[in-house]
């Protein structure tokens, strides 16, 4: 029988995981991804907020509505001519008194390449199952929850909001392009339609999923050998304790489920 037993009910596990997940520092990454037909470079910073804990025997901690708060800077460039037909000024003739007509040639304008920077922040929720994992590495016992599988991110209104942010970022850039004024609405719509909801989801998913898919929640960490009484004198030396074995499980105990840690110790 284990010498030490510690148990947490779901309420206690909620409190503990709030603290533990809240202590995970902000994570960042950068790279490039496909935003619809465009290639966008990005940098993203994400922090995690714990959701509601559901303990599921024998070894699963389910976090419902685990939240990823993210701030994204993205930039994508493209040739406007790829979404707008080139535009031609017609031949313009004007009669000059005593001289005759003077005409300009037809002048065609191919649109420039533009770069659109967008900053946007939001959160996304996911439900993740974490399996209890116990290890002894380098003389340290560790108990952690390791996520099982790849959770499905629930983007909800985020995609529409990011599309709106892209539209808002595109407009002032297009406004300064000569001759585009009358086509402004067409150009903005063409860009947003080219990206679409699917494009935004396809862009955000691969960026944000790794913040959760590789996630490990530290639950308990203790050296295998640790002092329980300090040395008092040369004839009263330090007293150490050895943790021979640690086990962790989710157990059903009466009306509720508990997270239970047990340890076998020896002097």
């Amino acid at each position, binding site marked *: 029988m284990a010498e030490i037993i510690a148990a947490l009910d779901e309420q206690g596990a909620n409190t503990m995981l709030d603290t533990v997940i809240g202590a995970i520092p902000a994570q960042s990454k950068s790279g490039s991804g496909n935003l619809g037909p465009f290639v966008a470079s990005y940098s993203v910073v994400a922090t995690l907020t714990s959701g509601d804990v559901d303990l599921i025997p024998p070894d699963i901690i389910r976090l419902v509505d685990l939240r990823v708060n993210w701030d994204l800077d993205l930039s994508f460039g493209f040739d406007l001519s790829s979404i707008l037909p080139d535009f031609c000024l017609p*031949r*313009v003739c*004007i009669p000059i008194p005593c001289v005759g007509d003077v005409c*300009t040639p037809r*002048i065609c304008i*191919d649109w*420039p390449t533009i770069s659109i920077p967008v900053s946007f922040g939001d959160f996304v929720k996911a439900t993740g199952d974490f399996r209890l994992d116990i290890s002894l590495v380098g003389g340290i016992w560790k108990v952690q929850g390791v996520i099982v599988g790849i959770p499905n991110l629930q983007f909800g209104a985020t995609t529409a909001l990011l599309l709106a942010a892209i539209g808002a970022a595109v407009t002032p850039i297009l406004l300064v392009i000569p001759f585009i*004024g009358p086509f402004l609405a067409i150009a903005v719509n063409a860009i947003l339609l080219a990206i679409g909801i699917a494009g935004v989801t396809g862009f955000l998913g691969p960026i944000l999923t790794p913040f959760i898919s590789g996630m490990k929640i530290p639950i308990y960490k203790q050296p295998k050998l640790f002092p329980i009484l300090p040395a008092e004198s040369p004839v009263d030396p330090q007293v150490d304790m050895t943790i021979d074995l640690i086990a962790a499980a989710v157990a059903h105990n009466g009306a509720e489920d508990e997270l239970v840690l047990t340890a076998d110790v020896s002097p």
Partner: protein
Amino acid sequence: MTRIGGFAMINTLDSRALQRTDCYGQRFMKAGDYKYNIVLAHGALISTDRPFVVSVMDTDTKSGMKQHDVQIKSGAGKFQVPNQKLIINVGDMVMWNCSDRDAPPYAVVGDHEFFNRNRLVNESGFSHAFGTAGDFHWVDAHGSGAAGIVRVSDPRCKSEEDIKRWQQRLAKGTLVTISTENVEPAEVEIVTGQTVFFIVTKCKGISITDAQLLNRSTDETGIGKAGSASRQKQPKSDKPREKPKSK
């Protein structure tokens, strides 16, 4: 000025530095060979090469003025024309334009007065298509005092019909005639994309230059009070207004 895509979208108003939606025209009233070059803007004093020539022939027949369009091609900082020698008759007009996407601002320069130092003189003209809305106060960069204003309003196209109507309006040009220091009319109103012809009938040599490029206050133009920065405006008629005052 939009510095997107290199030189592709520069649309400043300056007859000394021609751009893709500008045309420079010169009417030749005397027979002879007129050698010229096309150089980077403001490079007239540096370049002495004159590889191209307009050969003006005397003719007995009295026909009307004929216009000859010269489409300039640019590449690697140099400019080429289709025919090194262009033969025309006395009284004809030559119109130069370079609509290449990456063409830098340029000038047509020669050894005769009208090809010299980027000045518009007798029987010459300059056209500019205005790509953005706003009030464009122009002045003569050479200090003659000639000045004017082009008020460009956004056509506010909301439907296909609006765009069609706007495109039809683009074919209609607006004429500004400059004689000595008289500008007629000194103020014109157009919509985005329309072209203004500045025709010089008699002048020692002026430029049509956005006052902002010269860091001139709009008061110096003597017309209006708005700046030349782009400002969206309600669509207005493209009829020229009466000249506010003579210079």
